[in-house]
């Protein structure tokens, strides 16, 4: 049953993706490996669209994956699955939250989890570079944008406009 699978997989994502933002990416890559609901290159497209549409990236990608897989109902299932763990956890924690922050166990878990989420995000980035940076032109664009991004913080839209135009020009000219 595809709807139940969508809820289950995105529930797992919502429950175990620590660190916000792009921390769901390794989970989405794993879902693509196991279920083939979308390909790795579609995942990259989804991330691009998620980053330039309103709302948190995690919600956008869950909705997109759901709609791609099983239409509007699929979108609702995936999104519901992704936020369900948060609904449960936040309502349990709210009220007693102040005590948790100084807890030795809580701090220790965060200490171990942070490098883990950093490593988990590194893996799909490597495979995205392998899949998309497949010629000198792409490598040059990547290096230029990367160096620029280290020096000044611009909104995601800036990078998409530049790289999108570069991609268009390259495809039309070669």
């Amino acid at each position, binding site marked *: 049953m595809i709807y139940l699978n969508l809820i289950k997989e995105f529930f*797992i994502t*919502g*429950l*175990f993706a*620590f660190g*916000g*933002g*792009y921390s769901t990416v390794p989970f989405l890559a794993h879902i693509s*490996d196991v279920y083939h609901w979308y390909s790795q290159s579609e995942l*990259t*497209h989804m991330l*691009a*669209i998620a*980053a330039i*549409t*309103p*709302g*948190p*990236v*995690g*919600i956008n990608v869950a*909705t997109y994956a759901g*709609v791609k897989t099983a239409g509007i109902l699929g*979108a609702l299932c995936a*999104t519901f699955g*992704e*936020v369900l*763990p*948060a609904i449960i*956890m*936040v309502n349990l924690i*709210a009220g007693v*939250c*102040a005590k948790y922050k100084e807890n*030795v166990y809580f*701090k*220790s*878990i*965060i200490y*171990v989890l*942070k*490098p*883990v*989420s*950093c490593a988990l*995000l590194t893996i799909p*980035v490597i495979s*995205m570079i392998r899949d*998309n940076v497949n010629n000198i032109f792409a490598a040059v664009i*990547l290096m230029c944008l990367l160096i620029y991004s*280290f020096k000044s913080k611009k*909104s*995601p839209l800036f*990078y998409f406009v530049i*790289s*999108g135009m*570069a*991609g*268009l020009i390259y495809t*039309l000219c070669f």
Partner: protein
Amino acid sequence: MKLIEIYFEFFKIGAILLGGGYVIFPILKSELVEKKNWITLDELTEYFALSQSLPGIIAVNTALFVGNKCRKFIGSIFALAGVITAPVIAIILIANILNLLVNSKSVQGILWGVSIGIVVLLINSVRDIWKTSIIDKFTFLIFIAVVVLDLKFSKISPAHIVIAALIIGIIRGYFVSRSLKREAKEEAENDLS
């Protein structure tokens, strides 16, 4: 405050939120603390910090905390529904349009280019997390171990790695709390003598 008010407030926040969870803090501050006075800045800072250390989406977690603060469980549901309405509708519309466009060669070129932009954002994201997470030899070792494990067994689920990390974190917490207790005890003994 009325539930419908909570819904529309978070609907607005979801609609103007662009590009990742960290943007949400200044928006929430101006909307909820300064304009609406629903929560104090201290509470917001607390919720935001907590949302970052919980799994899931930071904006969603924060919305749930604020909703819970306003009207308990039902408030949290309305806040959540509000914050996800705009993105869900936007994506459903765009997904259908994109499916029609994706066969054109120029759209494929643009998407290929944009994927390079995504790689740039992701590398920056890794770099940001790295700065706050790889702080000593032990955390560096964890990073290397996870990368090696993941490359070696490509089908391993990230959920399993996170569960393993949770267990290691709890075990480490046990040793830290034991050594803290021992230190406290020694200090007390020194004070006595």
